[in-house]
C-alpha cells in the first residue's frame, strides 16, 4: 500500500498547519480617517458650559437655558442664577463657580460609564476629599437621601468636614442609561450650606435630553 506514507505525510502537514497559527505584529499605512461626527446629535466631546447668567435677567431665578451635554443619552439641567459657568474642560459635563461671603465653591458635573464602584465607594471617595474616614453601609443609609425627579433616581448626600476651615460637599449621584452622573458642589461649609436650596432646585431640573430628531 503505497498510499500510506503519503497519507501519514498529509496528516502531519494538517497538524502542522493547525498548530502554526501564531499571531504577529503587523504594520501598514492607511489614509487618515475622516473625522466622524458623534452619533446622531453630533455634540462636541465636552459641551461648552452655558453662558453666564447676565445681570440683566436678574428677575428670573433660573436664568440659564438647559444645555445638552452629550448626544442621545445625556442629561440636561438648569443652573441657578448667580452661579457662574466655567469652561467645562475635557473631564466635566458642566462646571460652575459659586461665589459667596466665605469665598468660592465649585460645582462639578461629571459622568462616567458603569456605577464607578458603587454609591458607597463614591460617598467614601467624597468623604476622603474633605478629610472624613470611610463609612460602612449602615452609615451610608443614614447619610443619604433619595429623590426621584423626571424619571431619574438620585442619591443625595450632604457631608461636612471637621476643624476650623471645614469643607462641605453637597452631592448627587444619578444613574442614567448605563452611566453615573455626579453633581457635586464643594467648598467652605457656610457658603455651601447657604447654597443648599439652589442646589436642590438644580436637582429638580435634571432630566434626560430630548432624543435627537
Amino acid at each position, binding site marked *: 500500500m503505497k498510499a500510506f506514507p503519503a497519507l501519514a505525510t498529509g496528516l502531519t502537514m494538517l497538524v502542522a498547519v493547525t498548530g502554526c497559527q501564531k499571531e504577529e505584529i503587523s504594520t501598514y499605512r492607511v489614509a487618515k480617517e475622516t473625522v466622524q461626527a458623534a452619533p446622531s446629535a453630533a455634540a462636541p466631546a465636552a459641551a461648552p458650559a452655558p453662558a453666564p447668567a447676565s445681570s440683566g435677567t436678574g428677575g428670573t431665578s433660573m436664568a440659564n437655558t438647559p444645555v445638552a451635554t452629550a448626544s442621545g443619552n445625556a442629561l440636561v439641567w438648569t443652573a441657578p442664577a448667580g452661579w457662574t459657568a466655567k469652561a467645562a474642560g475635557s473631564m466635566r459635563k458642566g462646571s460652575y463657580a459659586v461665589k459667596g461671603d466665605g469665598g468660592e465653591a465649585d460645582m462639578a458635573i461629571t459622568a*462616567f460609564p458603569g456605577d464607578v464602584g458603587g454609591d458607597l465607594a463614591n460617598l467614601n471617595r467624597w468623604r476622603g476629599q474633605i478629610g472624613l474616614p470611610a463609612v460602612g453601609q449602615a452609615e451610608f443609609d443614614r447619610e443619604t437621601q433619595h429623590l426621584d425627579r423626571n424619571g431619574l433616581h438620585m442619591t443625595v448626600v450632604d457631608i461636612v468636614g471637621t476643624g476650623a476651615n471645614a469643607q462641605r460637599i453637597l452631592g448627587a449621584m444619578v444613574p442614567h442609561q448605563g452611566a453615573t452622573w455626579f453633581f457635586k458642589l464643594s467648598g467652605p461649609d457656610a457658603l455651601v450650606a447657604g447654597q443648599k436650596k439652589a442646589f436642590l432646585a438644580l436637582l429638580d431640573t435634571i432630566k434626560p435630553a430630548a*432624543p435627537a430628531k
Partner: protein
Amino acid sequence: MNDLTRQFRDFFVSLKLTVVLLVLSLVLVFVATLDQVNLGIWAVQEKYFRSFFVLWNVKGIPVPVFPGGYLIGGFLLVNLIAAHVYRFSLTWRKAGIQMTHAGLILLLLGELFTGLLQEDFSMRLEQGVPRNYSESFRENELVVIDTTDPKTDEVVAIPESLLRPGASLQHPRLPFRLVVKDYFPNSALQMKSGAAPGAPQATQGIGTTVTAAPQPLTYKQDERNIPAAWIEVAGDSGPIGTWLVTTIAGTPNSAPVLRPAQTFQHAGRSYVIAMRFTRSYKPFTLTLQKFSHDKYSGTEIPKNFSSRIRLETPAGKEDREVLVYMNNPLRYDGFTFYQASFEPGNDKVTVLQVVRNPSWLIPYIACSVMTLGLIWQFWIHLSGFIAKRARQPQAA
C-alpha cells in the same frame, strides 16, 4: 509490507475505529452542547471542536481529558481515506458508495479549512461616512500610530495575545520599546481615587484620572471582553510615559471623558497609542446611504432591515449602489456582507457582518456529491431489483 506497516494499515482501515470515533464524537457533541450554557457558542467551538484535546484546568495546569474535534475529525478523515483507498475498486456497482465517501471526506476537509481560514468581522457604518475596514467581534489589538504625515497614518498593530504583564515589545518601525506593565483581559473602569491601593499607575492620558479593575472573562454571545493594559513607552534615554489603554476609550462612541485620542511626541514625530477592536482593512470603501428599519404597523416587531450602501474602489473600477437586506448579502472581493444588526434609536447607523470564507463552496459540493452517490447507489439496487422481478415468472 512489513508487520508494522500492516498493523498501521489495519488500524486505520478498521470499521471498529470508525465506530469508536463516531461514539467519541457523539459524546463530544453532547457534552459541548451542555457546556454551551456556561461558555456560549464561540468558546464552546474553540474549546471542544477547534482543538486537539479538551483541556481541564487542574490547579492552573491544563490537563487533556478528552480528544477534541480536530483529533477525532482528523482520525475520522484518515480512517475514511484509508478505507476508501484500501477497498477502492473502480466498478459501476461501487461508484455510489465511493462518491458518498468522497463527499464525506470533502465535508470534513471543508470544516477544517473553514476553521482555519474563516474571518468573521463586523462593520459599523454611519450614514455618509466612508469606511474601508471591518472590526473583529472578539479580538483586540494594541496600536501605535505615527500620525506625523498630514495625509496618511503608519500603524503598528500588536495582537492582544502578545500582551503579557512584563512583556517588552519592539518593532523596527518604532523608535522605542513598549513595556506591558499590566494587562487585564476583561476590566471595568472606575475613578482612580476610589481604586484599591496597589493598582497599576499611568503617568499620562486617561489613566491619570481613571483606572481599570479586573473582571471575570465573559463568554456570552452578546457581550465582549473589555481588555485594559498599562503600556510604558520607553525611549533610549528612559521612559516617555505610561498609558492606560482600553477598547472603550478613544472612539467616537466612548464616554466624553474617554473620547480624546491619547497622543505623545517622540523624536519630532507624533504618535497615538490605543487599544481597539482588531481591524481588517479592505481595498474598497463602503458608505451607508440609507438604513431602513420597517416594523409591522402598530407594533415594535421588525419586518425588514435593509441598508443602501455605496461601494467604491479607489481606482474608480467600482462605484455602485447595493441594497443589503436579510438573506440578500453583498458578495464582493471574497467577502460577504450580511445585514447583521442596528443601533436602537439611531437610524443613521447599520451594522454588517463581514465574512470571508474561501472554502464556503466546499460543503455545497460535498453534499451534492453525497446526494448523487446515494441516488446512484439506490438506483443500482432498484434497477437490479426490477430486473430480478422481471426475470421471475409471474405467479399464476
